[in-house]
């Protein structure tokens, strides 16, 4: 009978404890709504994203189509209808990038007129971002993820803006691979570079090529820095007396097409090897040069890797064709799809969903979410976002020989040279 009181007490305690229990975990509400860092998306309101792209250029249109595909794919199908993100529509604010610092500031400020703007995909041109859009957006902690900026200074620790990221490769890698191709593969020891003054992309690409080429043992005999009023044929005229072995044209269309066409017209420069960069891998370039484009080399992302990806080949590409009516007209489409993917992923991971479906975001957490990305198996390759903003830790850069360019031959384009390099290998990270 002594056990009886013990049983009473046990039953009594357990029942009373359960009666008093049943507490639920306190609701997570995230950041305070009146905090400047905090963005709240109300019921029925869209999530605002920006696209800051050079729509006058093929690469801008190409990347915009890829961003639209990423939004279309939010519901898991490419049906030309945008899916929803966390139960909210996405409102894509599109601003035109005119590839200069002024348009960078104007475009960034225009997009900031929407206070709920979380992130911007773009810009297309490095000169739009550098010291311009990247600064304006960083001041407001808005993420800027570029699919096509390649200028090294954008992710240089001394000049990097904290909310700036890019999925495109760093031109330190492209410049190094082109130098390897010219010096080691083509065994040419002298080269001329052509770039555009006051253009972050062009001048820095030419400079990185020069540094790598010189380090290999080559000599950059002359560097042209074209100003807006300079005649594009001037380069060819200046070189005709003393033709260089190689000419690296680090310009964008239409400038590079005009310069290359002028060089091709000079009989004394017929034997000079011409290499252009990825910004010239456009149909405009081929159209401008016609048959004389044959034999011109172009550097850019190695598409054989991208095309081997079954998602790209069997799912993305048909959807792209359905959306635009043609094949990709640029090389940064996969990077743009990845840029949008990273932003969407960061939004999903950091959203605090309040009762009824209201969303709350901390801009600082969004940035940290991007910095958490390690080996994201994107369409453009493996992405790891570094504090300096580079998400493409390495890149396989290929050299294609016209007319066998991806832009002309599509899947059948075969590179004559391809090399994978990491940022560490070109001395940018440990």
């Amino acid at each position, binding site marked *: 009978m002594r056990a009886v009181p013990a049983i009473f007490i046990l*039953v009594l305690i357990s*029942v009373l*404890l359960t009666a008093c229990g049943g507490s639920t975990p306190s609701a997570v509400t995230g950041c305070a709504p009146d905090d400047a860092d905090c963005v709240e998306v109300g019921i029925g309101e869209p999530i605002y994203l920006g696209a800051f792209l050079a729509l006058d250029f093929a690469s801008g249109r190409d990347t915009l189509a890829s961003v639209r595909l990423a939004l279309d794919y939010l519901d898991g199908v490419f049906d030309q209808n945008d899916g929803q993100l966390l139960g909210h529509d996405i409102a894509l604010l599109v601003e035109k990038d005119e590839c200069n610092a002024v348009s960078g500031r104007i475009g960034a400020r225009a997009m900031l007129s929407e206070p709920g703007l979380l992130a911007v995909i773009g810009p297309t041109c490095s000169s739009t971002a550098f010291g311009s859009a990247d600064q304006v957006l960083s001041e407001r902690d808005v993420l800027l993820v570029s699919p096509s900026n390649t200028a090294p200074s954008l992710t240089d620790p001394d000049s990097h803006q904290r909310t700036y990221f890019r999925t495109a490769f760093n031109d330190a890698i492209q410049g190094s691979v082109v130098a390897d191709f010219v010096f080691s593969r083509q065994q040419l020891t002298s080269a001329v570079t052509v770039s555009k003054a006051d253009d972050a992309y062009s001048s820095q690409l030419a400079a990185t090529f020069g540094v790598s080429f010189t380090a290999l043992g080559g000599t950059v005999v002359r560097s042209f820095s074209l100003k807006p009023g300079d005649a594009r044929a001037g380069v060819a005229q200046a070189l005709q007396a003393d033709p260089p072995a190689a000419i690296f044209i680090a310009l964008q269309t239409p400038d590079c097409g005009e310069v290359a066409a002028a060089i091709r017209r000079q009989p004394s420069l017929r034997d000079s090897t011409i290499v252009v960069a990825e910004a010239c891998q456009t149909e405009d370039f081929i159209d401008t040069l016609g048959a004389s484009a044959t034999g011109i080399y172009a550097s850019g992302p190695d598409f054989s890797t991208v095309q081997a990806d079954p998602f790209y080949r069997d*799912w993305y590409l048909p959807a792209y064709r359905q959306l635009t009516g043609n094949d990709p007209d640029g090389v940064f489409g996969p990077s743009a*799809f990845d840029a949008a*993917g990273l932003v969407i*992923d960061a939004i999903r991971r950091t959203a605090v969903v309040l009762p009824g479906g209201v969303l709350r975001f901390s801009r600082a957490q969004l940035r940290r979410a991007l910095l958490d990305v*390690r080996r994201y198996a994107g369409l453009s390759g493996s992405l790891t976002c570094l504090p300096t903003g580079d998400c493409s830790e390495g890149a396989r850069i290929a050299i294609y020989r016209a007319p066998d360019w991806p832009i002309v031959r599509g899947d059948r384009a075969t590179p004559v040279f391809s090399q994978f390099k990491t940022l560490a290998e070109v001395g940018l990270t440990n």
Partner: protein
Amino acid sequence: MSWLTSLNGGVLLALCVGGTVLFALAMLLALILVIPQRSREGTGMTAAAYMTVLGSLFAILTGFLINSEYSTLRQAQNIVGIEVAGASQLAYASASLPPSDTSLVQASLVRYLTSVSAAEWPQLEVDPGARSRAGDDLSSLSRLVFSYGPRPYAPSVTTDAMQTSLATVTESRRQRLVIATQELPLPLFVLSVVTGMALISGALLVALRTGPRYGLVAAGIVLIVGFDLTAILAISAPFAGPFVTSTEPIQQLAQEIASGDYLGWLGSR
């Protein structure tokens, strides 16, 4: 019966113990009035002879019910564990898809798990048979998962694993819903109550015969009957009342998936 089993612990305790005490007091009064002093010796001895049988019967009945209902509660907890394991496997399997698909499947899974803990659980307490938002979310998740089967870029090993783990989730949910609709076997419970009342009556008759010194034993029996009945009712509904199956594993998994723990590209954090 479900209204009774869904009452909270304090109310159940008050109801059962208070009920048995009131019954005992009423019975004691009735016995004092009905049974004359001279007959108490005989009735007390007769009641004492039956006390062992009644006590055993009460113990067997309540023991069976408590064991049976506790097994159901454990089974419900196990099923939740299996459902969570299936969901976890689905999240892992989806990590082999392209990142945009991984992210999508895991977001859909989080939506389902959140609906289960936030919407379906409270509904299981009130109306287990009603259609819940979790059902719709599971349908969306199923459509999404099965849509990867024919896609050429999705490895068949991955899609098979996703479909298998989804089947585990679906099956577990269905079992959970079936358990939620089950009720305490009323005839057995009524029999326990009747036996308990007989036991109390017997104890009171014995106490009347032997005097107030033995009243404490009778009071103990009254309390034991009250506590036993409380225990049966308390554990009898796994999704209602004081002892409920915890949603903690579901909430924890949803939180883990939402924060990216199952994304391959955050693995080295």
